[in-house]
Each structure stands twice: as C-alpha cells, then as structure tokens.
C-alpha cells in the first residue's frame, strides 16, 4: 500500500488532536495549586489529590453527580418506555401519514432550544415544576424522543416480519408481539438509544440552567459552568470536577463505540 505513511499520519493526528486537550485537563486535576499557577505552565503533575478532595467536599460535587444521575437516569427510562411502542407502530403498523410523523419528529428535533424555552418555562411554572428534577426530565424526554424513535424505528424495520406474523397466528395481540417477540430481539437497538439519550441528558446545559436555579438541585454541567472561587478561578477544582463528570461518558464510548456510531448515523442518514 502506497498510502500507508499517510494513513499512519492521519491516525496519529486524529488521535492526538482528539485526546491531547482533555489530557492536559486530566493532568491539571492531579496537580497542586502551586503547579497550576506556575508561569510558564509545567506539564507534569505531582500526583496531588487536593483538587479532588476540594471539589468533592468543599464544592459538594457528589451532590451534582447525584442530581445528574437522577435526571439522566429517569430521562433515559421514560424516553425509552415512551419511544418503543411509538417506534414499533411507525415501523410495523399501517398508519395513515406515518412518514409525515417521522418527518415531523425530525423537524421538531431541530428546533433551537431558545424557541421553546420561554413557554416551557411558563408551563413548568404553572405545574410547579421549576427547580424540580421532574420539571427538567419532562422537556428532556420530549427533546430526546425524536432521536430515540428514529433509532428504534430503523431497528424494528430490520427485524423479520415473519416472527410476529407467527406470533399473531398463535394468538398474540400487538402489544404481546412487541413485548414478547420484538423487544428481546431489539435489545441492541434499545441499548444504543438508551446510551445516546443518557449522554444527551447528562450533558444538557441550557434547560438545566433555566429550570434549576437552586444549587441543591443543579446538575453537573450547571455546577461546572457556574464554578466560582472566592478570589481566583479555581482551575484545579474545575479540572477535577470535569474529569469526574466526563469519566462515565468515556467509559460508555470505550465500551459501546460501535453501537454509538451505528445509532448516530441511523438517526441521521438512513432516513
């Protein structure tokens, strides 16, 4: 192969460019205050855990972690429970105008958040949902549904129809066919949709900022964005908090890289 050196160069650049900036942040999180404030900056950390201790105990990071787990977890569960039957219906049943529904969902997914932010805020104010986790979960479910429905619809499409027909002949209802036959087969698709929904809810900042003004209830992105020191920017603590907030996502990517890539391109291209 003549282009082997080019390929190696490309791999090198892509990996280096993707990882180095965050690697620097990881190194920073293991420094002590003196090293973080060194001018010119030094590269290697002294292995100090001061910033992790400070982020966890003084800035009460676990609080934010807990809130994020609650919000992202409930969003994922509810979005999947709601999206699965919808996707099944869109993939299998003869419904009038279902291409319109799918196209409409795609359009809705493209609304800039600011367009719906004001009225969503007013709805939540009326329902008493401001500064509550469920008040954030409701719009998150609505915002993640289109992608989840798209991924699951593509997935159901690819499963053989014969299986369900056999089930129907044996007397299964539509719901039974979905839960007993299709769901077990669609597990990889459900998994992909769940991971993407979780990552979205874990990372979302705009609505979290609007809806959660009480620090007791704020999620990780809000906490990290509003991180303030008394006198100086607490870069070390921000770096430590960032590493903790990102670690679960890095693990997800390392484990499920293939599913994530398939899911993202299913949502975008196969339509």
């Amino acid at each position: 192969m003549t282009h082997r050196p080019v390929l190696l160069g490309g791999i090198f650049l892509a990996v280096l460019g993707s990882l180095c900036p965050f690697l620097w942040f990881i190194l920073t999180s293991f420094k002590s205050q003196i090293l973080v404030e060194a001018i010119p900056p030094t590269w290697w950390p002294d292995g100090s855990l001061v910033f992790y201790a400070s982020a966890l105990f003084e800035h009460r990071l676990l609080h934010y972690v807990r809130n994020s787990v609650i919000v992202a977890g409930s969003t994922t569960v509810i979005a999947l429970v709601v999206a699965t039957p919808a996707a099944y219906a869109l993939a299998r049943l003869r419904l009038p105008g279902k291409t319109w529904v799918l196209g409409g969902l795609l359009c809705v997914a493209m609304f800039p958040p600011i367009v719906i932010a004001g009225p969503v805020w007013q709805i939540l104010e009326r329902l008493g949902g401001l500064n509550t986790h469920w008040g954030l979960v409701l719009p998150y479910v609505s915002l993640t549904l289109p992608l989840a429905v798209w991924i699951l619809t593509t997935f159901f499409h690819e499963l053989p129809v014969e299986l369900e027909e056999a089930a129907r002949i044996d007397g299964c209802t539509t719901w039974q066919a979905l839960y007993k036959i299709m769901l077990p087969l669609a597990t990889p698709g459900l998994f992909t949709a769940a991971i993407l929904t979780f990552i979205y809810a874990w990372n979302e900042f705009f609505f979290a900022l609007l809806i959660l003004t009480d620090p007791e209830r704020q999620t990780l992105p809000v906490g990290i964005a509003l991180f303030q020191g008394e006198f100086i920017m607490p870069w070390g603590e921000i770096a430590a908090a960032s590493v903790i907030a990102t670690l679960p996502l890095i693990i997800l990517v390392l484990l499920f890289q293939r599913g994530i890539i398939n899911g993202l391109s299913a949502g975008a291209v196969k339509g």
Partner: protein
Amino acid sequence: MAFPALTFVAVFSLYPAMDSFLLSLYSDFPGPERSFVGFGHYAELLQDPVAHQAFIVTLGFVLLSTTLELLMGTGIALVVHERFKGRGWVRAAVLIPWAIPTVVASQMWRFLLNDQYGAINAILFGDRVDAYVPWLADPWMAFGAIILADVWKTSSFAGLLVLAGLQVIPEETYDAARVDGATAWQRFRHITLPLLKPALLTALLFRTIDAFRVFDLVFVMTQGGPGDATQVIQFYGYKTLFTEGRVGYGTTISVTVFVAMAILSLFYVRTVGSKLLQRESA
C-alpha cells in the same frame, strides 16, 4: 401506541414553539398592561444594532465552524474507514470529544487559552512569558476561540455521518479504477467525492442546524464578550428573555433565529440538494 410520544412532543415542543410566536406579538411584560402589538417587536428588531451584530456573529460562526467541521470530519472519516489493527480504539478516541459535555469542553478551552496558566501560550512561547497572549480578551481571537472549541468538539460527529456515506460505496468501484491505473488522489476526486455528496450534505445540514443553537460555549468561555464580539443570537435571546424578562422581544428574537435557521437549511437543500439530483439523473 404512538400516543404518549406524540403527546410529549406536542406539549413540550410544538405548543411552546407556536406559543413563542404568539407571545412575540404582545408587549413585553405580563399583567394588565399587556397589549397586542402585532409585528411591532419585529420592527424593533430591524432597528436594533445589538441584534444585527448578534446575527452577523452567529452567521459567521455557523459558516466557518461548519466548513471546518466538514473538512476535518471528512479527514477523520477517511482515516477510520480504512482497515487497520486497533481501528476500534482509534474510533473510540475520536468519539471522545463528541461525548465530553460541552460545558466541560468550554472550561477546558478557556483554561488552555488562559493568558497566564494556559497550555497554548506555553506551547507557542515557552519561557517568553511577556509574549503570552490573552486570547479571550481580544474580539477576533475570542471569536476564533469559540470556533476552535466547536470544531474540536463536533468534527467527529460530522465525521460519523461522512463515514456512513463511505461505507455504502461499493469496493468494486475502486478496484475497477485501480485496474485503469487511477492514482489515490484521482480515486478520491472522481469516485469518493461525487458519491459522498449526499452524506456531506446531510452532515452540513445537521451541523448547521446545531451550530445555530450554540450557547454553552459562549456562556462559559466568553459571556458574549469582549464587547459583543462573541454574542451569538441564542445568547442575546437568552439574556433578553430570562435576564431582562422581556417576553415579547425575547420570543421575537427566538422566532427569528428559528426562521433564519430554517431558511439557511432550505437553501442548502434546494441548491446543493437539487444539483445533486440533477447529476444523478444525468
């Protein structure tokens, strides 16, 4: 069966979008003095120099970042499409910027670009501390910085969409070209690129729509500054709507963002998309 899903979308997306439009036709503050002003706020928007600036900044951001992301994304896709040992790991590594929360990426770039402790200055100037540049304090540099951060964060997403396009090009096409003696560049230029156009258009559309929504980067890295140099329209809308509480004018800005985004997307689909169709039928 689709009823619960459609209800969610109707209540928390469709209704709010329509309600935003209605709210934009009324005067700013809720209460007894609220009155119907028609398109009055839209007329105000046309006269508002801050809004003009915000639109120009947004458009510049959208055009530059999406162009760069498509270029970088295509590069990434070409690399991770090849077969080599450890490709799964490389793909995972490339996906990591996409997975990192935007707020974290923003703080990270803010620190990397820090005027005293930042790695970028250290790499460029080493020990020559007096040469260190306060990147985010300069209007143009700050504008460049949010583009840099966005390109770093989302090129891999653009790359995934391009990769999906690469995967449907049949291998035989390349074999035939090789037999005919085409060089690697000729194969890319005359086979890959033309067949990749639908995927590139999809990537361009998705990135454009997403770039219009940029908010987190600006909120964390620059707060719209210095001056109004990085004040994108979504950030201006947020300030008007939620900091100043001007409901009528704020929703006017948000509806206008939506319309601008829709027009640019339609423009892409009509021009790039229809050229594509013509070539396919020819």
